[in-house]
């Protein structure tokens, strides 16, 4: 039996689920995604849907995202978003 040392074992041990993953996205001059770089560069053949989320406007860093459901040249459907404040792209299941 291991002795309970009274040490707090669980501080900071929560793990996020479905956290956004940074990806490299090539944009058109109008700012729309045209290709996604995963292992190789994959062209985006169509945009299946797009929606915007603005939230937490009362915080110092408000959240503003533009989501795109895109179809890749392989036929796969992927959801990506652009963080409008940081101007960076992420991939996330929605």
């Amino acid at each position, binding site marked *: *039996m*291991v002795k*309970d*040392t009274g040490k707090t*074992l*669980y501080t900071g*041990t*929560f*793990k*996020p*689920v*479905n*956290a*956004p993953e940074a990806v490299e996205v090539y944009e058109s001059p109008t700012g729309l995604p045209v290709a996604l770089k995963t292992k190789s560069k994959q062209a985006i053949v*169509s945009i*299946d849907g797009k929606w915007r*989320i603005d*939230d937490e406007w009362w915080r110092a860093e408000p*959240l503003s995202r533009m989501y795109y459901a895109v*179809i890749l040249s392989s*036929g*796969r*459907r992927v959801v990506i978003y652009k963080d409008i404040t940081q101007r960076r792209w992420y991939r*996330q*299941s*929605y």
Partner: protein
Amino acid sequence: MKILCVLLPHFPLSCEILRHPEFEGRPIAITLSEGSQKLVLDYSPELKGLQRDMPIQQALAMYGEIELIHADVPHYWAVFNEILDALELKSPLVEGVELGDIYIGIDGLQSIYKNNDILVSAMQESVPATFNARIGIAEGKFAAYLAALNSPQGGYKVLAGDTNTFLKNLPCDLLPISIKSRVKLHDFGLHTLSHIALMSPAKLQAQFGPEGQLIWELANGRDDTPLYPRLTEETIEESTTLDSITLSLDLILMTLESMLSKAFVRLGQKGMGISSITIWTRSWVSQYWEQNVRFKEPAMNTRTAMSRIKQFIENVPQPGPVEQLGMKITGTGRPHGKQKSLMSQVRAQEHLLEEIKQLELRVGHPLLFERKEVEPWSRIPERRYILAPSNQ
């Protein structure tokens, strides 16, 4: 893989005509009981508009004077298996999916049969002419099926090279998918395979789920469905004609017991038991009764087997006085090894969690997590759930 498809249209009806030649040319529907419903299994080809699995009331509303025959499915399968046996002499890879649909793997047969004409006539020899076999050859099962469907009477059709031109104008009803999906395809205005082929696979997947991918691939002439050849199984069959017709359950059980004892003499030498058995009887008016009995664990002796068979025979009564009685052992097996429970103690869950807690204390960080709801309604996906330590 190169596949040869043999279609035997109206197979159950052809079996009946083979048995009763007087049925030839008469308007007949073969019916099958499913629960409380009677459905059409097969019908004379001249009765246009009838469909398989149509309720019999609907069929009678269309054709009031058709003769109804009750299906003798075991007989149809016996005839079908004979055909498959004969075809297996030509190619070892023979799959009989449904009554009348046969797929044969023909890769490598070119060294025996120099060309398609010789190959097809060899296959035709194995199928009695009554069945009007239609034959198609193509890469993949679906293409071979379509080729057979469009083959000339008594001839065959080969699909080689670009199959897309052939598939283009065929109706989407030929796809091997659920009736619900077929109706949905028509609702979307996708009536032919070319309509579907022009769609993007992502859109079909979004509407039909995994079946959407299959629909798109088949419409584009891609078919990776493997061939499942028949497995050779050792079967033991015994049957007897009773001295006098009887309704006595005891006499039926006694006869079965003596047949089983004989079978166990053969099986016992190999240390095998019975895992499934088909019991059948035929009454003096030729009514057929059949039950398939499966054993959770192989029965290793007559007594164990009989106690289960007795239950079946008592629960499903005979349709009339029995004249003939038989059994077919369709599955054999060895006794199962017994796995002891890993969590034999009561409150095993608590013990397991305690063990994990001990391990976590030793390594210094949690190892087991569970998903907890935080804001499941949130528009921000990562705010909806978190993984929290289980032992907290």
